């Protein structure tokens, strides 16, 4: 119920944004950076660059800002939507949050993931995909061309994305990601890393992080599949989770067990400062996001400090409070409109980079003043995947889902009705050499085996074919809310590989692509007061778009095959 309400409001908000941005006919580019202190003493930095090109029909095919290479890519392969991500490390859903816009759209499986929707007749989709993989491989200096082989990609029907017609999905879990992939990605920005926020991308600093995900998403309405022609939009994001270096001051303990979080600044985590915006960007902003959990902890702290219930509103507007202090006064403080619980909400501090220059660089500092412990919002289920069995025969792959502690009450909001049900989809691709016996699918609910048909609403399976196609499993499950844990197990055999089918260093084993678990009834989005100035920020308007909550399970089952 509540989720639906949320969704409706968000749609209303979004549609107003969409109509507002429709009228202009100009290429646009904007750059933004979101910084967020994480609960486990780390810092999340999320760079977001957006380029937009008006439709070719009215604007022509010569562009001022939009990268030529990608425009030609869209035109040549008739791409309706495409997403390519390069990731190193795994997103820690428990500590870094699993129920917010950043994690649901920027947490990506390790290695390379590519999916694309083509606007071509059905029989040409595979050919387009193969050509696209080769082109991207050349463009991004990565072995994306290995996705060309029909054993490497699959055509999900509904499990990965709803209404995916001519979608192809492929991933390379073993692909190493490094600077050679970042440089071509930066080349697509008009200022590259010569000016603007991208100058912060000091290679050693960003590759030292715990998580590094560089993403590129294209969506176009060039080929008349939709009524509204908005041209081509290119989103480039880089999400990094960094550990601020602890200074000696941080080591002093306040109480018996809590340690002060390490303070950080842009120059201490990136080793660089921002010396002005990219002159071609329409907007160039930096945001510092303070999570709801942290905000409520701070409020308690504040109340203790003041002794009496001080004015909530004034408290949230301050950037210098008992918990932390920002070194520069923000240009604006944005507060999330909280529909369900009025006590606390997410707060964003906005900085405009326009006012900074070479002589006066922007170097934001975040100083902790008191040790605070908080937790991030969690997805309804926490998933993990592991291998069972031993030897070369009769292994089993298991996906285990455990209910998380309801962090914000939303997930039990439906309990008023008797039939509280939790729906989720599981999408798993298995390479052909892991021969999964789909008939051995078993469902354990709270540790007890249960009939499969009781919980699975819908299932689509395309079994693997040796050396031809991978096995694809799409499942829609429905569980009563009271369930604590669910485990799905499937048995498999290991196939024999020809000597030249082994990857280099075969002793490391093989990586099975991540499973994608999505919750169709939950949408991660933030809501802000309707304000025109806010709509200028593509990043925040992205946050307002309700996104399906998506989680990834990517343990690395190493299957040693003979």
């Amino acid at each position, binding site marked *: 119920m509540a989720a639906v309400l949320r969704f409706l409001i968000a749609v209303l908000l979004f549609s107003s944004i969409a109509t507002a941005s429709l009228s202009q006919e100009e290429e646009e580019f904007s750059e933004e950076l979101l910084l967020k202190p994480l609960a486990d003493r780390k810092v999340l930095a999320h760079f977001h660059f957006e380029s937009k090109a008006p439709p070719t029909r009215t604007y*022509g*095919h*010569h*562009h*001022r*800002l939009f*990268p*030529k*290479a990608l425009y*030609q*890519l869209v*035109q*040549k392969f008739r791409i309706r939507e495409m997403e390519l991500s390069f990731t190193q490390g795994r997103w820690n859903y428990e500590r870094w949050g699993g129920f917010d816009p950043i994690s649901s759209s920027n947490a990506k499986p390790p290695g390379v993931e590519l999916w694309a929707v083509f606007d071509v007749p059905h029989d040409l989709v595979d050919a387009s995909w193969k050509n696209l993989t080769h*082109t991207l491989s050349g*463009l991004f200096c990565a072995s994306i061309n290995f996705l060309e082989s029909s054993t490497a990609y699959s055509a999900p029907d509904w499990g990965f994305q709803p209404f995916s017609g001519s979608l192809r999905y492929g991933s390379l879990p073993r692909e190493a990601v490094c600077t050679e992939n970042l440089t071509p990605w930066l*080349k697509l920005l*008009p*200022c*590259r890393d*010569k*000016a603007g926020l991208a100058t912060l991308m000091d290679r050693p600093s960003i590759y030292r992080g715990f998580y590094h995900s560089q993403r590129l998403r294209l969506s176009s309405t060039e080929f008349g599949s939709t009524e509204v022609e908005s041209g081509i939009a290119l989103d480039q994001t880089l999400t990094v989770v960094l550990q601020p270096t602890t200074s000696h001051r941080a080591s002093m303990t306040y109480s018996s067990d809590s340690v002060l979080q390490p303070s950080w600044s842009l120059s201490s985590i990136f080793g660089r400062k921002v010396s*002005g915006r990219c*002159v*071609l960007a329409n907007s160039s902003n930096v945001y510092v996001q303070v999570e709801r959990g942290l905000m409520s902890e701070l409020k308690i702290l504040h109340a203790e400090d003041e002794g009496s219930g001080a004015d909530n509103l004034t408290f949230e507007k301050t950037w210098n409070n008992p918990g932390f202090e920002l070194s520069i006064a923000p240009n604006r403080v944005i507060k999330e409109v909280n529909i369900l619980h009025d006590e606390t909400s997410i707060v964003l501090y906005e900085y405009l980079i*326009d006012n900074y*220059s070479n002589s006066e660089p922007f170097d934001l500092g975040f100083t902790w003043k008191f040790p605070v412990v908080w937790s991030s919002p969690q997805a309804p289920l926490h998933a993990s995947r592991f291998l069972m069995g031993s030897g070369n025969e009769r292994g089993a792959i298991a996906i285990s889902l455990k209910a998380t502690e309801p962090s914000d009450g939303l997930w039990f909001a439906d309990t008023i009705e008797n039939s509280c049900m939790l729906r989720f989809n599981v999408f798993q691709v298995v390479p052909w050499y892991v021969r999964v016996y789909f008939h051995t699918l078993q469902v354990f609910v709270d540790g007890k085996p249960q009939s499969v048909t009781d919980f699975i609403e819908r299932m689509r399976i395309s079994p693997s074919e040796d050396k031809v196609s991978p096995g694809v499993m799409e499942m829609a499950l429905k569980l009563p809310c009271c369930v604590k844990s669910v485990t799905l197990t499937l048995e498999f055999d290991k196939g024999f590989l020809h000597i030249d089918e082994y990857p280099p260093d075969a002793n490391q084993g093989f990586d099975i692509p991540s499973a994608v678990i999505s919750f169709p009834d939950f949408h991660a989005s933030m809501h802000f007061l309707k304000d025109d100035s806010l709509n200028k920020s593509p990043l925040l308007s992205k946050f307002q778009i309700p996104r399906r909550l998506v989680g990834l399970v990517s343990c690395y089952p190493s299957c040693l095959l003979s």
Partner: protein
Amino acid sequence: MAEFSESPKDRPSEISELPDESQNSVSDFDPCTMRKTKPGLKRLFLTLTVLFSFFLGSPFLLKSIEIYRSPLPFRDIDSLSDSVGSSPLLFPCHFQAIFVGFDNFDAYDLGISIKHEMKKLTKHPVCGTCSDSNYTLSVTVDSGSGCARNYNAESTFMWRCGAIGEFDLGGGGDDDGVDEFLGSVLGSCEGFRKVYSVVVVNRGGEVRAVVGKYRHAWIVGGVLEEGMNAVVARVAETFVKVFVNGGKEEGSIHGEFMPVGADGRIVLSFNLLNADPTDWIYGWDFQRIDEILLAPVIKALGPVANISVESQVLYHTPKSSFSYWDEKWDSYIFSTKDLPFFVNSNEWHLDTSIAAGGRSKILQFVVYIPSAKECPLLLQLPNGEISVTNAFISPMWGGVAVWNPPGCLRDSESKHPARHTISPQDLQEVFEIFMGQLRQLFGLKSDSLYVGASGTTNLLASERGFTEWELDVLSRQHTCFNLVSCATTLGSLSRLVQSLPRMIIMDEIGKQVKFSLEAAKLTRSNASLGIYDASAVSSRQARSLAEDAFFHPSIMSVSYYSFEHCFAVYSPFFLPVSMHVLLAAFREWRRYKQETAKYLAWKEKAKVAAS
């Protein structure tokens, strides 16, 4: 083998079975050397059947491992290579000389002497020019009242007598007007054939020679003052050096450096580089340029190459070498010897276009806008002068033009430079430079003067960038070059295929070779008819198909499956088995012979005993 070892053991039992019959001869019967029964043929028959079935099966095996080779027309390829190699492709050309105001000269004599001069100038016919055997020259002496023609003046390009008077061709001020006028007079009698005309008007005054945008030239002035031989030499030179050879001097770009990709396509990639956008940001209205300036050029060059255009604007793209401040010019000077370091391949992302096919040629054209630190930037020629165009070309790569923003004025000290657009006039100037560069890349002259042995000739420029006679020259040259390239490619393919008898050749390659040969044939027939455009188009097709066949992925990837390879693959399967079968047959045969000999020996003995 087991069966053989058994046979001696069998013998005693055989003997014991027949005790009474041979009672009497037991004493002289030696079981080792004789036998009493005829040896059976069963065993021999069985082994031989197996052997023969092997022999019968081998054709099936050979058939099944046979590789598919599409039949290639080797003979046609050879004949094409031979004919292209032995004699250069020459086109028929039609020339016409019109003399106005030469009343007392004989057209026939003039024709002879012009032909003689032309022969002198074309001693070694180059591929893509006109042969002296199949060109026609018509000479008309127009005296106002009537015309005198030489003998082979054909009716198809008849000059209308008295069409121009002595003073119709203006005094030199309005060349374009004269050009249009002559075009209207000559165009009417041209027909489908391309006739190159030179109109010589004798009326005194300074001699002035102009080549127009169409296919004619005119020489006006007191030409007779230098004598008739000079006039004839000049007319012949205009025909041969300008109309046939394109006015190129020796040492300019040759056919091998034609900037056309193997698939007959060119991508013109225009780039606007803002060296430092924090000083100023310039954009351009490329859409308009594309429609107004480039579209006619692309259409005109259509027969020679299939051209597509793309553009991009890049920022933060400094050049990679430094310039120095020169007080004399009051600007920054970049000298020619540093030009190789002007293009900064690290920062200038002039990528290979995705839209271009694998074998297309990409020509980069770069407008470089210097930063405020080095503005105005001028290019200095080796002789110390400043380049007029402020641009340079790099053959087969493209061209760079430096455009200095007006006044080199920075937008105050603001942090947010405003966006400017290069004004249409400036942009047109830049694109005129690019057009000149494109002409140079195609091997044509970029200036409007031709200096020959017998004087200087003005060349009028067309608004399409290329005049009609220049396009004819390009078509002829490209036809020739494409045909030579097609013949060499097909020749190498045929040699490769013949040298590897077990290489798989797909049907598609066979088809491509066939079509390529057909297109080459069509080219030759079109060339012999003098249809330049069509022959250029079909020669391009022939070359691109030949390249497609040669670089077909199936040829590139197939391991050629030589006989050794085949033997190595099949011998582990068949060698062990066939050895046994052969040996068995041989031994069976030997045994049979042995046993027969034994039987015969016994028979002999029995006969002796009986007698």
